[in-house]
């Protein structure tokens, strides 16, 4: 059983795609679609790594990231932010809030795979 990746994202097809890419690479992928309850899900697992979308129903990915980083148990979990907006200031905000990596949609599958591998090794 591979390490656990939690994917917080609300588009069903994108969930399916990333789930496919990562489980083929040996990770165990958990998914969650709602921003409000995401934090509870993280605490319940907790995963070895989180992939976090910015625009979520209920609560923005940045808010969640901020809470992740200010909570003891989760502050060291690697987080990769995912966004369809792809603006420079979003990237700055994400990195300033403590994201380990920032990726814009659309992404290349191999990039996702490689970054997840790299972050898990680190």
């Amino acid at each position, binding site marked *: 059983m591979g390490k656990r990746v939690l994917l917080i994202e609300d588009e*069903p*097809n994108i*969930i399916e795609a990333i789930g496919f890419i990562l489980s083929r690479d040996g990770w165990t992928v*958990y*998914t*969650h*679609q709602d921003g409000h309850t995401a934090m509870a*899900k993280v605490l319940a697992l907790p995963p070895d790594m989180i992939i976090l979308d910015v625009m979520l129903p209920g609560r923005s990915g940045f808010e969640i990231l901020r809470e992740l980083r200010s909570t003891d148990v989760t502050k060291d979990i690697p987080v990769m932010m995912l966004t369809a907006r792809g603006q420079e200031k979003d990237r700055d905000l994400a990195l300033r809030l403590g994201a380990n990596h920032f990726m814009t949609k659309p992404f290349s599958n191999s990039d996702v795979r490689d970054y997840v591998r790299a972050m898990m090794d680190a």
Partner: protein
Amino acid sequence: MKPPAKPPVFLERASYRQRRLGDAGRFLPVLGAVLWLIPLLWASDGPETPSKAGMVTYIFVIWLVLIGLAAVLSRLLPDTDQPSDDTRR
């Protein structure tokens, strides 16, 4: 915008199994209720009446069986957080 995919008529083996497990989860309380109604059939006073200790034992054994079945089912039933549960039949 994405039109809901029509559910297929036949399911893969795995999802078929999961849905039947859901049925089992729904059936369990019915089973328990029926078994616990059996005492109504006991004759209230007569040679056929079970002993008092027997009555108590019967109720508690059924109870244990239900707990055991529920424990097994709770492990097997699909994760409710996964979208594979009810949306993708």
